C-alpha cells in the first residue's frame, strides 16, 4: 500500500473528509460568499452600491479576496499585557471546534458513508449539539486573555448571551427529535421524506432554532458582543492580522456548521434527492444538496443585517427568556402532539 493510497484513505474517511473538505474549505468559500452577500444585500436595501471597484463585472467579489489576502499578510501585533498562550490558542481552538460537529452529522442515508458506526449514529443529533456548545467558551477565553476592558466587557456580554441562546438552540433542535421520536439524524431526515419538512410541521421549533443560530453567531440583530460603536470589537479588540481573521471566520464557520444541522433536522436534509449506491449518488450529490440548503440559511441570516438594528443586551435577553424559551418548549409539545397523532 503506497503512501498516496494511505493519504487518500485518510482524506476519504467520512469524518475527515467532512471536517476538512466540506467544513474547512467549504466554509472558507462560504464565508467569503456570505460576507460579500451581506455587504451587497445591505447596500441594495439601503440604496447604495456596496463593494464595486475591485471587480466591477463580478460585483466587487474580489474585494473580499483582497481583504483575506490583507489579513493573511498583516503584521499581527500581540500586546505585552496579554496572557500569551490562551490569547493565541483561543481563536485557533475556537475555529477548529466550531467545525467538529461536521464530523458526526450524516450527509447521506447510505450506511457505507456514515461518519459514525450505526450504533453511535443513533445519538448523532445529541453528539452534534454537545459539540456545538463548546466554541463560545473560547470567545470568552479570548476576551479574558486579551486583558483589555473592551475585550472583557465583550466576553461578559458573550457569556450573558450564551446562557440565553444555548438552551433555546438545544430545545429547538430537540423539537425535531420530539416530532420523530429519535436522535438519529438519518432517521430524522428520512421521516421528513419529500415535502413533509419539519420546518412546516413544527414551525415553532424551527423558528426557535433559527433565532438561536442567529444569536449564537452574533449575526445582526444580536451582534451584541462585538458591537462596534459600544465595545470596539468586543472580545477581539486586541487581535490583528490573521488571528482576527480566524476569530471572524470562526463565527462564520460555526454559523455554517449549525446551518447544516438545521438543514438536516428541519429542511429535509438530502431530499428531494434519494441517495443510492456508489460514491457519486450515495455521498457527493446528497452532501451537495445539504450544503446548498445550509448556504441558503447562511445567506438568509446575512440578509438580516440589511434591515435590523442592534438589540441592547437586556432586550436580547428579554426576547430570549420570555418569548423564545416558551416557544421552544411549545415546539417540543407540538412535536410530541404530532408524533402522538401519527403525523410524522
Amino acid at each position, binding site marked *: 500500500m503506497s503512501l498516496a493510497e494511505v493519504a487518500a484513505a485518510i482524506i476519504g474517511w467520512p469524518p475527515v473528509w467532512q471536517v476538512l473538505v466540506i467544513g474547512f474549505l467549504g466554509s472558507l468559500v462560504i464565508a467569503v460568499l456570505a460576507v460579500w452577500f451581506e455587504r451587497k444585500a445591505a447596500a*441594495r*436595501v*439601503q440604496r447604495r*452600491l456596496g463593494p464595486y471597484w475591485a471587480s466591477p463585472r463580478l460585483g466587487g467579489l474580489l474585494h473580499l479576496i483582497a481583504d483575506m489576502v490583507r489579513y493573511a499578510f498583516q503584521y499581527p501585533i500581540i500586546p505585552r499585557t496579554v496572557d500569551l498562550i490562551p490569547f493565541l490558542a483561543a481563536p485557533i481552538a475556537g475555529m477548529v471546534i466550531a467545525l467538529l460537529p461536521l464530523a458526526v452529522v450524516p450527509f447521506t442515508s447510505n450506511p457505507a458513508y456514515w461518519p459514525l458506526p450505526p450504533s453511535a449514529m443513533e445519538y448523532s443529533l445529541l453528539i452534534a449539539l454537545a459539540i456545538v456548545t463548546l466554541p463560545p467558551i473560547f470567545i470568552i477565553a479570548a476576551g479574558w486573555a486579551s486583558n483589555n476592558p473592551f475585550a472583557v466587557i465583550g466576553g461578559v456580554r458573550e457569556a450573558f448571551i450564551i446562557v440565553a441562546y444555548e438552551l433555546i438552540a438545544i430545545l429547538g433542535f430537540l423539537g425535531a427529535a420530539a416530532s420523530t421520536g429519535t436522535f438519529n439524524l438519518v432517521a430524522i431526515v428520512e421521516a421528513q421524506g419529500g415535502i413533509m419538512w419539519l420546518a412546516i410541521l413544527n414551525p415553532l421549533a424551527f423558528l426557535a432554532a433559527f433565532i438561536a443560530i442567529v444569536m449564537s453567531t452574533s449575526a445582526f440583530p444580536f451582534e451584541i458582543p462585538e458591537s462596534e460603536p459600544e465595545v470596539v470589537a468586543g472580545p477581539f479588540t486586541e487581535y490583528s492580522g490573521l488571528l482576527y481573521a480566524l476569530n471572524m471566520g470562526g463565527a462564520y464557520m460555526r454559523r455554517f456548521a449549525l446551518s447544516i444541522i438545521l438543514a438536516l433536522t428541519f429542511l429535509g436534509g438530502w431530499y428531494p434527492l434519494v441517495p443510492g449506491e456508489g460514491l457519486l449518488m450515495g455521498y457527493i450529490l446528497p452532501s451537495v444538496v445539504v450544503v446548498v440548503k445550509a448556504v441558503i440559511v447562511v445567506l438568509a441570516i446575512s440578509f438580516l443585517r440589511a*434591515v435590523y438594528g442592534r438589540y441592547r443586551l437586556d432586550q436580547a435577553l428579554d426576547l430570549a427568556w420570555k418569548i423564545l424559551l416558551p416557544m421552544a418548549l411549545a415546539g417540543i409539545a407540538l412535536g410530541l402532539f404530532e408524533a402522538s397523532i401519527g403525523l410524522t
Partner: protein
Amino acid sequence: MAPRIGLKSLEKRRTLIDGVRSNLHVLAIGVKYFVNPRRMTLVYPKEYPRLSEGYRGFIILEKKKCISCAACARICPSAAMKMIRVMEPDPKHPEKPRMKQYPVINYQRCIFCGYCVDVCPTEALYHVNYHDVVYDNLAEMFWDLDTFQKEPEYKTALEGRPVRIMVHEELGLIKVPVGEGG
C-alpha cells in the same frame, strides 16, 4: 413658573402580536428593496453631476475687461486673490511700456465664495461650472496671470457621462442622464 400637576400615563405595552407584526413589516420592506433596488450612488468617475450654469466653480479672468481696481483682492475673505504688477505695452504710446495691476489667485486658499465675481465692476471675472480638477502638487495651485485666463481642462467630462440629480416625488433622489429630459 409654578410646577404644573398632571397625570403621566405609561406608554401602552407592546404585545407579542405587535412585535411579530413589526418584525414582519421590516422584513417585507427589506425584501421589497432587495428585489427592486433604487440605488442613488453616483459612480463618480464613470458618471458625474452636470452642474447648472450659476455654479460657483473655478474663477477665470478676462484680462481685457480688467480695470485694475483691486476690488476683488480687497473683498476676498480668505486672502486668496492678490494684485500683482506687470509691465505691458501701453496701447496709446506703443513705444513706452506701462505698469498695470492684475489679480492672480491661490487655489490653496480659495473658498469659492464668489465675492470677487460679484464685486467686479466690469465683469472681468466669471465662474466655470465645474470644480473637480486635480493637481499634482501645491505649487500648481498658485495660478499666475497666464493660467488665470485659461479655463482648466475638465478631464472628468472626457471619461464619464453627465447625469443630473433630481428629486422624484415617489422615488426620492434619482439620477437622470443629461439629454433625456434632464
